[in-house]
């Protein structure tokens, strides 16, 4: 099959949302507005087999920029096309209100309901009322139309976590190959992790479509580096993390040069803030920390329906709404953490297969997952969720 045709076919069917985006899953998502309503949200989701939820510790006592970031991450996750309907669970006195979140998500046209603990008269009533509302939302979701998925509908997040020295040699180039295919076929790829651009930002900036985009990228990296220096701290020990160092990564520059390869070789079209939906197709950079779960959460809130996640040390990370395909960088982790991993790119190091051959295999897996095949993280029910904090709790 020609390179052009490779990414075009075999994507299966997806769920057409009222805003025109196409979901690869059809989740009913129960979103807590703040930490105080998080357990009620989980309890509601426990009662409803179709529902997923997640825990987070934010939504209240946050300064403006931080509060906005939380609201954006929560409404973005609810707006993700993999979500068919949303129940917002609020407390009643928090910064990020249920009405605000439900309104932001309802703007996408999908069915949204809300329940507020203080208005219902307590947690128990909230859970019962929430479960009843969920049944109505499930009815509303039945009307969802399915359509054939085309690659231009795909928003792919690429992530690496628990990196080792082989990440930049095996799995990241393989994921980069797939990212190039998706971009070439008209889709969107979100690269993230600003901290892990330090030392490699000039390579990505050189691929920006214009000087403004390049400057945005360089500014984003300079800002995080300046924050670290201002704090009088040394990045080493936090990033590269002890496991990265044990795996052979010596400096952040070395790690970054490997990390950046998972974005492929396409031109950089846009730089977006954390949890903001890109306005263009093609390769986009999102300003997230190197923290895996915060980064994946940001990309999914930005509309990524599926994530390719490379790991050399191994991690079980998943997402409540997006399938996360975990790609092993070496045979050893593929063996030792097999139940958490979906794909082995370790053959690239031993010469068993080339980057392109592995990339083709991974693209086929990506298509299968897009068509409904569950990832290991989905099978295990790993619903990791964490929001990037940019301010103190007050």
């Amino acid at each position, binding site marked *: 099959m020609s390179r052009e045709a490779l990414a075009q076919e075999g994507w299966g069917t997806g769920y057409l949302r009222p805003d025109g985006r196409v979901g690869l899953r059809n989740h009913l998502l129960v979103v807590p507005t703040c930490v105080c309503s998080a357990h009620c949200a989980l309890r509601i989701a426990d009662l409803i087999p179709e529902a997923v939820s997640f825990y987070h510790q934010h939504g209240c006592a946050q300064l403006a920029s931080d509060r906005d970031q939380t609201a954006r991450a929560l409404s973005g996750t609810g707006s993700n096309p993999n979500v068919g309907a949303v129940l917002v669970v609020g407390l009643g006195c928090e910064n990020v209100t249920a009405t605000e979140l439900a309104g932001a998500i309802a703007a996408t046209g999908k069915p949204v309901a809300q329940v507020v603990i203080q208005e219902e008269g307590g947690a128990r009533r909230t859970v019962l009322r929430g479960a009843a509302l969920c049944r109505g939302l499930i009815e509303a979701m039945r009307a969802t139309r399915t359509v054939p998925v085309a690659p231009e509908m795909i928003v792919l997040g690429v992530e690496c976590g628990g990196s080792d020295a082989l990440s930049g040699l095996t799995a990241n180039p393989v994921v980069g190959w797939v990212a190039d295919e998706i971009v070439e076929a008209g889709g969107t790829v979100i690269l993230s992790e600003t*901290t892990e651009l330090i030392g490699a930002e000039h390579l990505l900036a050189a691929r920006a479509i214009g000087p403004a985009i390049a400057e945005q990228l360089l500014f984003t990296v300079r800002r995080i580096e300046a924050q670290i220096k201002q704090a009088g701290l040394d990045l*080493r020990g936090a990033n590269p993390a002890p496991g990265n160092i044990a795996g052979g990564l*010596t400096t952040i*520059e070395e790690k970054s040069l490997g990390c950046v390869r998972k974005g492929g070789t396409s031109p950089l079209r846009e730089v977006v803030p954390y949890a903001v939906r890109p306005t263009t197709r093609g390769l986009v950079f999102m300003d997230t920390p190197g923290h895996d779960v915060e980064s994946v959460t940001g990309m999914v809130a930005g509309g990524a329906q599926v994530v390719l996640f490379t790991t*050399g040390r191994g991690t079980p990370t998943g997402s409540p709404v997006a399938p996360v395909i975990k790609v092993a960088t070496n*045979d*050893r982790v593929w*063996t030792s953490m097999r139940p958490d991993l979906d794909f082995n790119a370790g053959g690239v190091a031993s010469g*068993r297969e080339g980057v392109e051959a592995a990339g083709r295999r991974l693209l086929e897996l990506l298509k299968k997952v897009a068509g409904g095949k569950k990832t290991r993280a989905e099978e295990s029910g790993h619903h990791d969720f964490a929001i990037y904090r940019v301010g103190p709790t007050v």
Partner: protein
Amino acid sequence: MCRGPCPADGQTVVFLRLGWQCPFAGWFCRQAQELASRMGLQFEELDLTGRPDLGAPVGAVHSSQVCVPGWPPLCAPRDSNALYRQLQHPWKDSPCPPKPPVAPRPAGSRSAMALLRPGDAGWSPAVHAGVATCVPPRSAVDREHAAAAKLSWFEQVETTYGPGAAILVACEEGAAGATGAAGFAEVIPASAAHIPLATLRPGDLFLTCVHALGEDGDVRPRILERLLSELGCSMKRNSRMWTVCGLRSCYPNGPAAVFEALGFTVAGNLGKCWLPEAGWDDLELLSWSPAAEGGPRLALVLAPEDNVATLPWGCRQGEPVDVAETQPLTAIHPVPRGHKIALRDIPQGGRIIKYGQTIGQATVPIGRGEWVHVHNVMSARARGCSGE
């Protein structure tokens, strides 16, 4: 937890050994034994081949044919020379992985194998030609064909032996760049086995460790098929047979595949039973073919201007490292898996270059062949406390 037909208590798991050529057969056998004990099953080892005490060759040599009475002549694939050399390698006597004890030779048993060379009576040029064509040039396409062939064979076996029966065909990759892979085609009839088949009870399970080329047309699956049909009556009626294997470099996948083949979901808490007691390093070092033959360690140089190379499998102190340079490079320090080695002398303060980019500065002078890591390299970025 159980997906397919599960073994019942009291059943016996039999480890069916089809060769000594696999460096990890002994280790694999122990893992299978542990797995069996966790599952509350009896365990026995059934050795069908390669026993020096039978007077049979442990391995066949280049262009040899192996003849088993009553069987058509079989031929070893072309590259078994390489494997024969490996058989002389110290791993045979090293503590990792230990070999299970060989049971004493039963009184009166004889060698059932004969080694044929070109010109000997019974030598079949046709079989040899067939084997030669079954080791095609290695390419992604060939591998895809081989995988498809294996899958269809797998399905065929499932059809033959009923739902739940599964044979996963071994796929043993050779050294990178090698044209063939090591392998054997010798089989000893069940009558020569240590454990008489008569002692097995209906319903017993077979765990089989098979090394195969993984190429389309590999003779060994067919040998196994013959063996199956020889044991066939009871197999078909009462038993399920499992053949388990993995890629050579991730050979310890075997037990996980065994477990999955038995219809279980592999759970995280079984993870440690996959790990050899002696640790991964030796295992993987030995499994890397050039190392197993005493050759230089693979080193990856990512850009021509790089002054460090990455050793995916690491190396021991004093070992030669393959960096495709005219000057041979010897490791001054042991280098852990995935870590870097200096290709040139680097002065204090000099740039460390990987991917053709600067990844840090040398904090002390680094000599060619030294291990390069946080003890002698410092990042130039995001270091608030370094005063830069």
